[in-house]
């Protein structure tokens, strides 16, 4: 008996040790990112390493703003991601509803094609997209940054999973009452979908906020920089100011962490729901 209690204690100790080590590995880089944003550049590659906050916060912010115009970058990123989420959410929610709750010709074919398209690497579309935008003079516009991924099949997939669980009987009784299809969708179905809509919104927001390759190609001038593109230009060939860079990384990362921490319940449960079946 005593032996098995010891064994269980050791097992538990091992479990918590493992989890704590992973917790430190997961979280420490974020702490160090903040440390870096308050220290001068050379402190990031100093011996002994710098592990505490310094007094360079304002200098780094001012320098960063002089280099890339960080408030403009922040505005671009927020504007592009915000508008994208609104439109993409409407587009994918409407489509997902039709895929889940209607019988119509071509339904399965269209759905399967969209899902399979997720397997085609983004890079296979980027060259023709560039030519298209360039031909219509749309490079370096918000339109170019927002439009290409508005139909985001993963969002359609996520929303469809949630609509499938909505009872058909409610739809039918509303139809018998003579309600218009559009009304049924907006007044009866959507209000019960708030958690799913929240989860899908975070997905879409993160996708656009973090998107790099397409903006890198589509943006021509500094005024249009989004965070990933702006940060990437800080990585100089000969000299990199790490203080500035850490400040930029922090500014790009903190908003999304705050949003995530506030909505994490929806987000994680949205993901937990989507992965199964």
């Amino acid at each position, binding site marked *: 008996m005593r032996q098995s209690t010891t064994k269980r204690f050791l097992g*538990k100790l091992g*479990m918590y040790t493992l*989890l704590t080590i992973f*917790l430190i*590995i*997961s979280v420490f*880089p*974020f702490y*160090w990112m903040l440390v870096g944003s308050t220290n001068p550049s050379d402190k*990031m*590659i100093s011996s*002994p*390493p710098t592990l505490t906050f310094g007094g360079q916060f304002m200098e780094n912010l001012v320098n960063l703003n002089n280099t890339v115009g960080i408030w403009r970058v922040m505005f671009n990123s927020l504007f592009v991601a915000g508008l994208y989420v609104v439109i993409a959410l*409407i*587009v*994918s929610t*409407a*489509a997902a509803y039709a*895929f889940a709750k*209607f019988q119509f010709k071509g*339904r399965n074919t*269209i759905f399967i094609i*969209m899902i399979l*398209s997720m*397997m085609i*690497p983004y*890079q*296979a*579309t*980027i060259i*023709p997209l*560039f*030519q*298209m935008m360039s031909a219509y003079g749309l490079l370096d516009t918000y339109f170019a940054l927002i*439009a*290409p991924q*508005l*139909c985001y099949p993963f969002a359609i997939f996520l929303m469809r999973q949630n609509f499938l669980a909505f009872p058909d009987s409610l739809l039918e009784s509303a139809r018998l009452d003579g309600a218009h*299809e*559009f009304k049924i969708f907006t007044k009866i179905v959507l209000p019960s979908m708030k958690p799913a809509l929240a989860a899908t919104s975070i997905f879409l927001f993160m996708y656009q*906020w*973090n998107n*790099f*390759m397409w903006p890198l*190609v589509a943006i021509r001038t500094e005024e249009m920089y989004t*965070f*990933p*593109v702006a*940060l*990437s230009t800080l990585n100089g060939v000969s000299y990199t100011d790490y203080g500035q860079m850490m400040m930029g990384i922090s500014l790009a*990362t903190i908003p*999304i*962490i705050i949003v*995530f921490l506030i909505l994490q319940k929806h987000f*994680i449960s949205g*993901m937990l*729901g*989507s*992965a*199964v079946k």
Partner: protein
Amino acid sequence: MMKQTKAPYFFIAPAVILFLIFTAYPIIASLYLSFHQKEDGAYTFAGLSNYTRLLNDSIFWTALSNTFIIFILQVPLMLMLAIILASVLNSQLLKLKALFRVSFFLPAVTSLVAYSLLFSIMMQNNGLFNELLGYIGIDGIPWLSDSVWAKFSIVMAMTWRWVGYNMIIFLAGLQNIPEEMYEAAAIDGAGKIRQFFSITVPSLKPIILFAGILSTIGTLQLFDEPFNLTGGGPGNSTMTLGLYIYENGFEYFDFSYGSAVAYVVVVLVAILSYGQFKFTGDKS
């Protein structure tokens, strides 16, 4: 009744139109480009010449093998860690579950560019990693300046970024395994490790497949990390197919050749996904 047959078309119309313009058309157009060549400002049919050019292009082969090395090291390592963490977190007895879950997921919300740059600072020769390793008597590791270590650095950074994400996917799957299965196994005398291999792993098979395919697609397009963490170097030691597509398309503006490389990635994703279906060997 008429209304009912038309309504769904209104609902899907925006998605379908956007899909045709911004996804379907570019996919077909780049296939078309890969069989054409620009001559005097116009594209003329070039047969397989872009593809035969690949065969003799040593940078392409380097990119292909680098992508594969990273893929083969990173995907199994990440999935294994994710399954282990998920099954530990799924334990009934564990306290602070929410704290661990959120912390492990945190890296997955950072932008690929941001974390790549953060790692690039930590991995400098006299950066944080080497300073900390120095305390336990390990001499400076050339994280970014050695051709073998640079690949490993990318694998490490990617694993940091993606383990939590996959862990959440596995947690979803684990919640569907009835606790009684573990209890029955425990009564039969199976230890935790035995239970892990005879219950957890087989039950998660479809989800491992799902996560495996997602990671395959992601790794074969690898771009943000080599672009920002290693710049494809030293030499071409971390040149990936994704980076090579970008270089050809947007540094040399050879759209046809870039498209041919992109289609190699398309075919590889198809083959590897199919292979994983076969390997895990069932439906769904």
